[in-house]
Each structure stands twice: as structure tokens, then as C-alpha cells.
């Protein structure tokens, strides 16, 4: 498998509204402390100015731990804080256009079907998330869960790393990794909303690494 610069198996996606005590940056620091190697800042309801501030802080934090930082949708914010990459969704600009303006940054793309996964690869995406694999409240808008069989199909069909997304938590990782064979897993609440984000991150990393 061609993995390029994708050197992480667990892709942590943020949602500051789910962060318990201390706020998002504190949660991220705990996760980084446990060894999380990549964070996607995904905060859709912030002004550009506030997002820039948060991204600047997240950049300092991830740099200190040698972790990668991705910014959801906003290539301008990613460029201005020298993030490692951007993560695009269905509503974002096409991968090929993003590649043209992102100055060599890594580009990830969310996909919800085999067809969109193939198209994203053709357009030059460096890695994909695919889901929702399981039922999860934050992904209900993207239709019924695709399941691990569909995940396995997508993983076989594309040559770039695929991260399973949607309902990923410590007790589903074994099944996802064994049956879907993704490159890694992507998750929000299992770490962000955990009573101890650090412990949750450590457990997720351990469960995923067994299959690496």
C-alpha cells in the first residue's frame, strides 16, 4: 500500500462542544500526550478570526508533540497557520482545486460511497475517511451506516490510506480493523467526550496498533 506521508493510524477529529472540563485545547493536549499523531480541527460554527486563533494554538500544540495538524475545509486557515494539511468534505471545493492552491500540503477527503472514494483518489487526495461505518449521531446526515463490508470494499478499491469513521470506539476497533482492513481509524467523541481523553486515546492507539 502506498502510504505517502501518512504516518498515523489514529486520526482525531475535534468538536469543541463535546469537550468536557478545560476546553478543547486541554483535551487535545491529553490526547497528544498519549501519542495521538494527527488532529483534524473541525469547528464549523466559528468565525474565521476565531478559527484562526484556535488553529494557531493547535499548531503550537501539535508541533510540540511532533503531531500533524489538519484543518477542515478552510484551506486559507490551514495555509496561514502552516498546518500539515487540509481535510475536505462533500461541500468543500474539489480536491484537485485544493491541491493547486495548498502549497504541497497533504489533502484528506471525507467519503461516503465507493464512487466518491474513487473520485477523490483520482483527483489526488492523499488519504480518505470513509463512513459512517457504524451508527453515530454526528453522522446521521450521511445516511445509514455503511458497515464493515462496504468499508472493506472501499479499502480494496483505492490505493491510498482509508480511515474508518463513524461509531469508532475502543470496543468496535477490533472488528473494524480485522474485517474492514482500513489503514487506520478516525474518531471524535470516543476521545473528545471521554471522561479521560488521555486514557481513551491510549486505549484507541493500543487497539489500533495490534492490527498495524
Amino acid at each position: 500500500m502506498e502510504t505517502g506521508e501518512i504516518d498515523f493510524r489514529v486520526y482525531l477529529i475535534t468538536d469543541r462542544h463535546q469537550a468536557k472540563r478545560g476546553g478543547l485545547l486541554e483535551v487535545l493536549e491529553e490526547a497528544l500526550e498519549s501519542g495521538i499523531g494527527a488532529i483534524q480541527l473541525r469547528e464549523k460554527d466559528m468565525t474565521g478570526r476565531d478559527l484562526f486563533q484556535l488553529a494557531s494554538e493547535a499548531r503550537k500544540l501539535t508541533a510540540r508533540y511532533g503531531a500533524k495538524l489538519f484543518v477542515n475545509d478552510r484551506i486559507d486557515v490551514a495555509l496561514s497557520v502552516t498546518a500539515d494539511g487540509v481535510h475536505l468534505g462533500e461541500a468543500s471545493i474539489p480536491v484537485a482545486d485544493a491541491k493547486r492552491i495548498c502549497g504541497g500540503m497533504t489533502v484528506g477527503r471525507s467519503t461516503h460511497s465507493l464512487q466518491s472514494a474513487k473520485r477523490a483518489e483520482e483527483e489526488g487526495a492523499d488519504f480518505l475517511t470513509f463512513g459512517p461505518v457504524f451508527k453515530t449521531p454526528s453522522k446521521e446526515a450521511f445516511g445509514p451506516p455503511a458497515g464493515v463490508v462496504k468499508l472493506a470494499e472501499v479499502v480494496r478499491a483505492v490505493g491510498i490510506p482509508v480511515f474508518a469513521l463513524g461509531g469508532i470506539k475502543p470496543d468496535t476497533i477490533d472488528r473494524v480493523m480485522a474485517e474492514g482492513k482500513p489503514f487506520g481509524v478516525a474518531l471524535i467523541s470516543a476521545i473528545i467526550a471521554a471522561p479521560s481523553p488521555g486514557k481513551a486515546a491510549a486505549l484507541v492507539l493500543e487497539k489500533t496498533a495490534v492490527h498495524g
Partner: protein
Amino acid sequence: MDPSGWSVYVITDYRLSGMRPHALVAEEAFRGGADVVQLRDKGQTPGELLKTARGLREIAESFKRVFIVNDRIDIALASLAHGVHVGYDDFPYPAARSIYPKPLLLGASAGTALELREACAAGVDYIGVGPVFETWEAKGDAGSPVGLSFIKEARKATDIPLVAIGGINHENAASVIKAGATAVAVISAVVCEDEICGSVKRLRDVVLEAKRSR
């Protein structure tokens, strides 16, 4: 292309223009003599906005005029727009300038002395000053009117071209130019009208006349 030579700056608004396409509004505005058209549509997804922006950029090129994207610097870059306009809450001005260097045109909003200082310090190409008068279409993010006195203040503080915005129409445009504005930016004064082209032309005449008698 140079903001110091601008007179009329038209901002699109899908709803106010009776859901006429942005491209039609832009074409009419340029035909009427607008120097600049800014695409502003908070309802479109970034993907849709990029498509719209590409269309408007082509129209601007055919008229040899300026096309500017509101807020999203990445969409401006991807669509090869001539410029981008950022509000104070959209993006810190120095950060915007660093990823959107000259000769690309960077415009920044200023409605307070602080915002004005930050825009000047960041080396923007023009400053959107306002809201000058009471507006009814952008209540949420526009703030209370700054009046003609703020244009005069800004004019004293900087040589950067000033584009006055907020509640400007054919009746009050001359006063704005006399206060020191380089150009006037309008939305409802022209895009609501059936004859956008004619409305822009009349506004342009008012602005040019005010500049002559300044």
C-alpha cells in the same frame, strides 16, 4: 484595476436581487460601469461558491474590470479572482495579507479606529469603511452607522483608497465622496432594481460629478 481609480463597487446579493443569478447581476453592473463586483453569498457551499466565482471572474475579465470574493481567501485563490475582501471577524488582516500577497488585491473592513489601524498596518490595498449610514440588509454583522465623520477621519489617517459602504444610494453618494471616499460600495441601491445597468450608470455619474467638484 488600481483601487485609487475606482468609483463604483457593486456587491452581489442573491436574495436582494430577486434570486437573479450572480452572473447576471455582475454582467449588468459591469455594463453600467461598475469598476468592481464582489461576490457575496453566505448561503452557498464552498464548492458552489468556487463555481460561481469562476463564472464571475470570466465576466470581469471580459470587461477588463475587477472581481473580488467576499470572506474566503481560499476561494479567491482557487478561482483566480483579482481580490478578496475580509471583514474584521473573517480573518486577521496581517494573516490574510501573508497568504494573499500583492499584486492580488486585499480589501479589509473598518468601522472603528482600531480596525482602521489594523487594516493600515497590514498593508491592505483598500479599506471598506462603514457602515456609513443606517442599513437594513446587513443588520447582523454591520454594527451601528459610523457616519461621514469617520470617512473624514480615515481620510486623514491614511492614503489607502477608501471604499465607503453601508446605506449608500444615489441621493447620498455625493456626500460620501466629498467626505473623502475613493469609491462607493452598494448592494440594495442597485441590485434590487429591475434595471441594474441603468442604476449603476446613474450612480457612477453622481460619483464622478462629486469627484470633479471636490
